[in-house]
């Protein structure tokens, strides 16, 4: 993978995480936005929105540093990928737990995971792939130092 691809990846995901994070925050602050955002499975959750913005910021830092071709850029990208994966897992586990509660102890109310699958989960799929692709290279570079 070339540094340019990594830079582009960091830029795209930095913007995407910020976009979804900001939408979640604004949906909570401006109720009129909540319904259209909900149609895209974006909930009005300012805390989760803040988390997405933090991950997005780390991606954008990575993008800027990678542009200067410094080793620090790789570190930012690697940590951003890790954070995206961690929060993706947190959101996925939360989703599954709510589902398990409904299925096991609910009053027959159906559970449709597709309807509650938020951006924190599906956005993390791409960083997970990035981590798989670049993780070994990155670790190899670190231990080789």
């Amino acid at each position, binding site marked *: 993978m070339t540094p340019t691809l990594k830079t582009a990846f960091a830029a795209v995901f930095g913007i995407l995480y910020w976009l979804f994070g900001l939408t979640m925050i604004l949906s909570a602050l401006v109720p009129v936005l909540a319904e259209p955002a909900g149609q895209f499975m974006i909930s009005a959750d300012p805390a989760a929105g*803040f*988390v997405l913005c*933090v991950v997005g910021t780390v991606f954008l830092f990575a993008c800027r540093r990678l542009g200067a071709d410094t*080793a620090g850029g790789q570190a930012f990208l*690697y*940590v951003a990928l890790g954070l995206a994966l961690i929060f993706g897992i947190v959101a996925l586990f*939360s989703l599954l*737990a709510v589902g398990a*509660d409904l299925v096991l102890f609910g009053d027959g109310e159906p559970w449709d995971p597709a309807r509650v699958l938020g951006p924190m989960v599906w956005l993390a799929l791409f960083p997970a792939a990035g981590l798989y692709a670049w993780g070994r290279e990155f670790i190899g570079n670190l231990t080789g130092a």
Partner: protein
Amino acid sequence: MKKIRIALAGNPNVGKSTIFNALTGSRQHVGNWPGVTVEKKSGYARIGDHEIEIVDLPGTYSLTAYSVDEVVARDYIIDEKPDVVVHVVDATNFERNLYLTTQLMELGVPLVMALNMSDMAGKTGTIINRSSFKKFFEIPVVRTVGSKGEGLNELLRTAVFEAETSPHHEHAIGYGDAIERSISGIGTVISSDPALAARYPPRWLAIRLLEGDGNAKEKLRGSPAELKVLALLEQCDPDQIEAAMADRRYEVIAALLPQVCTTCVKEMNSSDIIDQVITNRYLGIPIFLALMWGAFQLTFAVATPFMTAIDELFAYSATALAESGAEPSWLMSLLGNGIIGGVGSVIIFLPNIFILLFLLSLLEDSGYLARAAFVMDRLMYAIGLPGKSFIPMLIGFGCNVPAIMATRTIEDKNDRLITILINPFMSCGARLPVFVLLAGAFFPANAGNVVFVLYVIGIIVAIASAWLFRKTILPGKPAPFLMEMPPYRLPTFLTSVRHMWDRGYMYIRKAGGIILAGALIVWFLATFPYGVEYGSADSYAGMLGHLLQPLFAPLGFDWKIAVALLFGFIAKEIVVGSLGALYGTGEDEGTLSAALLADPSFGPVTAFALMVFVLLYMPCVAALAVIRKETGSWKWALFSVGYGITVAYILALVIVHAAPFFAGGI
């Protein structure tokens, strides 16, 4: 027989005590340093016709005056003037140990370096050129392996040689024009008092004074030079000078290290690189907050099905008991309302507590918590606390008892006292049941966020209190952050589970002990006098509640809440059990929520005010006992209770009266 005295100095965990034990064998004396509770160990060894007294100094990273250990170590060297100081260093961490070397050099004492753990250093390929080191630093170096006793005879022989024959070398690090002028000016004034100059090396004392060392100022007391020196010091900024001097010492180390150890200059490892991001000055705190959010999100979401399962189990038990029609009725009431209701309402929250403890263990085992302390250091310093206080505060999220005990790592007395006093504001696991119950009932759509806000309120109150204490009753300056960062590790599931169990098991014991006792007391008060309706206003609980109610009326709390809060002093979990008993729904969590929602005196504002009150109002009995033990006085333990109640009352009052303006009178 000739006698000489050797002092062993060095960083903590460099094998100093191993060398001391190997040198002195059974010829040891263990006591305390005068006036402090720091252990003093001395012993004797013989080599040739020399009897050598060896004193093991406390392990320190530097010779500033931020901890008792540092003051003890350097005062011994200056006041007792040992013939030689043996500086024991960890050869596998050579660079880190050299900062203390530069400070020992400034003391102007004869030095010998023991390059300990040199076998392990050799295995990792670290090669230290002893002759180059001696050339640059004028300090002889002896390779030792304390655990195997290797090199110890040579160490003693070298120390004896240095003590008897070596000429004394002055070592000086140049601190640059401006600082050197100040050192020279103050040094000259110190030299004008021959008694003072004979006791303390003038250059060393001048450096310490310029670094703002309060202990060094005490050494000036009574000297004719005191006023002149103080006048000169008034023209200097000690913080700036201290930082500049530390920088110069590190510059000297960085410049000389490659010349004495070609393999010691390490390129960045994975931990260093990850730290660039995690401890970044702009990203560090947001990443910390995001990770904390993740921990709380998982704590509440993942626990839900487990809680429901436990709830169903207790509901089934209570129903089976009620339908059995067994007699006597008071025994059935004791089992149903007292034991199943009281203890069950606490057991139900075990999943939350265990998951939170598991996640804190994961963060700790990964090495992140130490970084969190570092990240928060600047903020902590601004409010008057050292970064080290942050770890006990984080542990306080699990339980305040071990958290208060963890303050023992904080050297400064006032720093430690403040950290102890603010720790009960960190929301421990015992408060979680109250939050989960009330947030789940009154804020169902945002329960997780409400609980997160409560934790944040706890942190803010703790910070504000620390600032207040520092400005009023416990003045002073926090010690600078000095802490070894463990490398990042992938935490293993089993280790984290073991840590979780070690800490969480206490809750299970508590449920079977103090909480069961509390539940039985509540049941007794709610049941008697015999024949009254359970938990009614005519019961003893009702009478007690009505007695207390006027105190809580301004907060909108009725007599049932007053009773629950009173018993919450035993353990915070009992608040839920008491509410369950007093609402007559104890065994079923869902029914208790419904009963609270149906109570006209209970609304979202009252619920939130109650949660804030429970968060802040006082430490539980166990925490209070530990505060008394750790501070050594009931004065601070009682202060903690009084201060907590005052803050909780004021904040709850503000919430109750201010909320309607913001929420349109919810």
